[in-house]
């Protein structure tokens, strides 16, 4: 029996009506905000070589891409990620441009497997910013300020939590413990799942019991400035300390901007150590069971495309944001074209369209009555 044509593949969907309008409105809000911070839009290829994504996102992530072969036998992929494509353009097309580069994009990405059971989509639209060629804490704060403004515009500023971490805190500890790749990954997983009991057991091989326990507690709960002070007391290696210094400086700026209500220090966020090199952050909003955005510093990425330079950026998930705001009933204020439409009927086609074009020139909304008129 043939597959019914009505069937939609898992993880794909349509948008229509007020939901589609809301989605477009969110997109416009974000893009115009990025424009306001001088980010230029860039459109990337939808299909590119698989090896690009393998270098860009790491094999474990790139693996989830839809893949097929080109006519010359090389492996292609439908983009599972935009950052890799932007980073390559920065290193090649924009090699001669003045730094820093400020680029933004709106682009659907595709995965054969959804990221998790709850993130069921296999096509999702990412809206993101990349700030390439600037390493200072100024640029870390710049992208966080953009995220905050976006959440303001979407009226989510009181319903959000942005968690901050620096992957060098973990890297410093793992280095100090001389962990091999397997042990390092085991520790990463225990920290990532906040599995304090097993982490304490794991650490007890390397450190005294009291410190193991204290560290396990530390990664378990996120917090504000106090978390950093506690971390400083426990973690003494130079690499981690430098990262804690960076976080503390960033936190001071956040406090001085009175934005600390939206932020948490979360030393347990170590989900993508292979990719990020410094600051990482995740964006959560009430009503969404998974994060709606994430970002961080990835100073190692552009080197794989031939030009090593610092970079920081973030993506917001347009579909997840649409879902949250739609469920909140936010759509009512965003419905476009609510102005009354003029319904046009005429006895002949010429008159009909002369009127229609006049009204359109004045910006009026029209609906053509498509019932055939007799000339």
């Amino acid at each position, binding site marked *: 029996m043939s597959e019914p044509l009505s069937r939609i593949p898992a993880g794909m969907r349509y948008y229509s009506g007020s939901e589609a309008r809301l989605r477009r409105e969110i997109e416009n809000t974000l893009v115009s905000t990025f424009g306001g911070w001088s980010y230029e839009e860039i459109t990337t290829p939808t299909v590119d070589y698989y090896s690009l994504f393998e270098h860009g996102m790491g094999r474990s992530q790139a693996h989830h891409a839809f893949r097929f072969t080109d006519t010359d036998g090389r492996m292609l992929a439908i983009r599972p990620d935009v950052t890799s494509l932007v980073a390559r353009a920065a290193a090649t097309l924009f090699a001669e441009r003045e730094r820093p580069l400020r680029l933004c994009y709106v682009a659907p990405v595709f995965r054969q497997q959804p*990221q*998790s*059971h*709850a993130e069921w989509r296999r096509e999702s639209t990412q809206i993101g910013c990349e700030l390439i060629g600037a390493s200072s804490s100024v640029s870390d704060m710049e992208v966080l300020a953009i995220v905050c403004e976006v959440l303001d515009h979407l009226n989510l500023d009181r*319903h*959000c*939590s942005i*968690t901050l971490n620096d992957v060098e805190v973990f890297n410093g500890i793992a280095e100090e413990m001389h962990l091999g790749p397997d042990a390092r990954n085991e520790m990463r997983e225990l920290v990532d*799942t*906040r*599995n*304090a*009991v*097993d982490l304490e057991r794991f650490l007890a091989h390397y450190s005294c019991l009291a410190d193991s326990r204290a560290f396990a507690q530390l990664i*378990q*709960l*996120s*917090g504000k400035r106090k978390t950093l002070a506690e971390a400083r007391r426990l973690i003494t290696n130079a690499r981690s300390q430098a990262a804690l210094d960076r976080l503390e400086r960033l936190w001071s700026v956040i406090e001085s901007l009175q934005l600390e209500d939206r932020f*948490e220090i*979360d030393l347990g966020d170590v989900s993508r150590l292979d990719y990020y090199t410094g600051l990482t952050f*995740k964006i*959560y*909003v*009430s009503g*969404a*069971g*998974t*994060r709606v955005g994430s970002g961080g510093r990835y100073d190692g990425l552009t080197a794989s495309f031939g030009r090593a330079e610092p970079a920081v950026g973030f993506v917001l998930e347009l579909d997840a944001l649409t879902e949250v705001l739609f469920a909140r009933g936010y759509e009512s204020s965003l419905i476009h074209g609510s102005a009354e439409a003029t319904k046009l009927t005429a006895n002949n086609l010429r008159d009909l369209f002369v009127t229609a074009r006049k009204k359109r020139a004045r910006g009026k909304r029209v609906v053509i009555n498509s019932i055939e008129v007799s000339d």
Partner: protein
Amino acid sequence: MTDLTIAIAKGRLQEEALELLTSAGLGFSSETLSSRRLAVEDESGRYCLIFVKPADVPVYVEHGIADCGIVGRDVLLESDADLLQPLSLNIGACRIVVAAKDDTPLRQLGMLRVATKYPRIAAQHFGARGVAVDIIKLSGSVELAPVLGLADCIVDLVETGKTLQENGLGIIEVITDSAARLVVNRASYQLKAEAVGQLIKSLEVALLRRASGD
């Protein structure tokens, strides 16, 4: 509006989980507990408990419909859900084992037929040592499979080992221990940090009190 929704695995763990939550300070009237309602509130009105099948606990929590859950580690390993596991609860202790009539089939290097309710755990266990397996997924009475010749061995959850014994099977190998865990949704962990933190603390205190035999 309650602060936190907690999904509880029905069945084996349910009673112990409720006892633990009670000693952590949640109050439930006896009439609430004896009712057949699948969603109940505690007396403070801060917590809502929902009772679902064990395998559905990770599903509710991963989607954020429940903020937290109490469920066996066996279910978590099998579900591959992306969840936080801040606390091991010391209740419902049991083991996931490989059991067979004797260890002969496991010493052969050909294909091993494994009957189980845990296809993922079984595939991972035998995959890690490069053994080719035919995994036969069953929904219950797994112990029958080797007896009747459907499989060479089983991978199953064992509490006392009595059922195995009565069916002429023995434990060949322990894959892992499996006690209950507190699991938390990643977003709730941040957005309801205070409430989740309080729940973890009071459960920790309750567990310590129990361990010291109070």
